[in-house]
């Protein structure tokens, strides 16, 4: 049983982390067509926020609960800054935007190194997350369960936001037809900014969860970002459902491969599977029904 369930549960936890990271990416990519390569660094910022919070709120049981909203706001504001200062100046140049955010991610990584040092710092987990729960004969660490709960919580909140609030309706209108939404009186500029804030904030939340598992590290973003991108690519544009399925699939499949072979081979296999998957369901599929060619 162990050989089967261990990767399943551990993979679910890493899939949950991927989900939190990918939700924000998918949101901004779907709405604005912007690939934010600095998204991984927002994860890192979240992790360092958790670390910094712990220096102030020394009670480990409490600090993580304080860190969650703080990290959301800190990463969110950083995302907002990025949108206002850089991305909003380069509309309709998606590939260039991608490259600019590469530059931003390099700067943020170096900043983290200069402020906190190249070595990572540990984040003390709260006592109530120590221990495990036996599931199918596997002792599932509470920290991993916490990640899953956090991811599902973020997902539910985001889905509710999109579905039931007027802001959510504006986002969906903008995703479907930006120009039309604009003429209907939706200020797509404002919607973009809030979307960027929320998407980046989600990365901050993910960073807190990461810090509980592996501490902080200036390069932490890099470890997650590419898998998160693969999730977005496989999951489809601006689609929560696709992102959720893809995140958990990638997480679990990678865990099984890692169990059978090695972590490195698992990465190779996951990449190959995503490329193969695109053979069946290519994104950016050509479905022009307009009267011209774009």
């Amino acid at each position, binding site marked *: 049983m162990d050989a089967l369930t261990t990767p399943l549960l551990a993979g679910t936890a890493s899939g949950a982390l991927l989900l939190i990271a990918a939700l924000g990416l998918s949101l901004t990519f779907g709405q604005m067509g912007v690939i934010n390569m600095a998204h991984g660094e927002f994860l890192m910022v979240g992790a360092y926020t958790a670390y910094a919070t712990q220096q102030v709120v020394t009670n480990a049981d409490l600090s993580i609960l304080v860190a969650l909203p703080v990290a959301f706001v800190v990463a969110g504001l950083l995302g907002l800054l990025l949108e206002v200062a850089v991305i909003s100046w380069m509309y309709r140049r998606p590939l260039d935007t991608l490259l600019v955010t590469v*530059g931003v991610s390099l700067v943020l990584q170096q900043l983290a190194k200069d402020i906190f040092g190249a070595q990572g710092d540990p984040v003390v987990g709260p006592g109530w997350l120590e221990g495990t729960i036996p599931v199918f004969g596997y002792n599932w660490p509470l920290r991993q369960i916490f990640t899953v709960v956090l991811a599902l919580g973020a997902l539910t909140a985001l889905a509710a936001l999109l579905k039931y609030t007027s802001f959510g309706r504006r986002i969906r209108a903008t995703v479907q037809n930006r120009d039309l939404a604009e003429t209907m009186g939706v200020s797509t500029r404002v919607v973009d900014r809030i979307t960027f804030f929320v998407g980046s904030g989600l990365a901050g939340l993910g960073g807190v969860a990461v810090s509980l598992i592996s501490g902080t590290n200036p390069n932490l973003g890099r470890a997650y970002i590419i898998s998160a991108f693969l999730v977005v*690519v496989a999951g489809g544009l601006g689609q929560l459902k696709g992102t959720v399925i893809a995140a958990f699939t990638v997480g679990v499949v990678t865990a099984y491969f890692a169990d059978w072979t090695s972590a490195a081979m698992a990465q190779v296999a996951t*990449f190959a599977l995503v490329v193969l998957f695109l053979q069946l369901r290519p*994104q950016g599929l*050509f479905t022009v029904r307009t009267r011209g060619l774009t």
Partner: protein
Amino acid sequence: MSPKTLSLLRTFAPLLGIAALAVVMLVVAPAVLSPFRLNSLGKYTCWAIAAVGIGLAWGRGGMLVLGQGVFFGLGGYSMAMHLKLEAAGPDGVPDFMLLYGDGTMPAFWEPFRSGPFTIFAILALPAIAATVLGWAIFKRRVKGAYFAILTQAMAVVFATLLVATIQETGGFNGLNQFTQFFGYNLYDPVNKQMVYSITVVLLIVCLLIVWQLYRSRFGELLVATRDAEERVRFLGHDPANIKLVAFVVAAMMASVGGAMFAPIAGIISPSDVDATASIFLIAGVALGGRALFLGPALGALTVGYGRTSLSEAFPNQWTYFLGAMFIVVILLLPRGVGDLPRLVRSALDRRTSA
């Protein structure tokens, strides 16, 4: 000047540029630079070779290749394997295999004892890899950011794989301590300069290839594909094939650059070929001007030089410069610094006409 001479001049001006570059790099540089600096210039030249290919794929073809480090690595590791085996002598085994393993050599190393096979592999491996990946991606009309992400993911996976296979590829340390280059002792400064000269000649060959490609009908079609991919379909061409050719040529050039990098730098390791290295390769192209003829090569030489001198002067700040350069250049000068003359000219025109 008659229109005819003007158009001739326009056609062959790039050749004058290549000639000037050749004189500076083959005659002037060896005369004025210390062997150490010349060797550094050799390294930048390897990056420039890869950059010429990126200019083709990205500048003219619109494919943002964020994983050229992989192809750079295929060439670099192929060459490095040959050099390790040369250093080990006939029937010898590379030193690190004794250090990390039991001294048995993986079978895939064996053919790299042969120099001709190594040269073949340096060209064939990237061509095969790029064809397989490009075919899978372009035929399914996956493009734009998706393509960029997939190539970047490829670089991450490649580096992870290298780090994990310490007994086969030297892992994190990579392959180093080469003694000979196709029979020539690498400790001899004369031979080092020869390797440098070969690299410069290869850069010139690559420039000549893209010169011909840019002025050919293929070049026109590539630009057409970049600007209106779907429209090209209605000219009776499959854009996938056009992009594939550019992608494969770019991969082969990156591989050649990597192959020369190994003997010049004396090492090839995962950090020379990973995602960050791939982004570094793009930086010079963006700076020089992605779609300009000499922009990518000159940009790569500049960024290479900047990396060395800035990290000597400010060890920790180099990354800030690189990051800031991306932001400033792409935001304000998307066509690169090489585009400045045109911008100035059009600004002056506007002033005089106003």
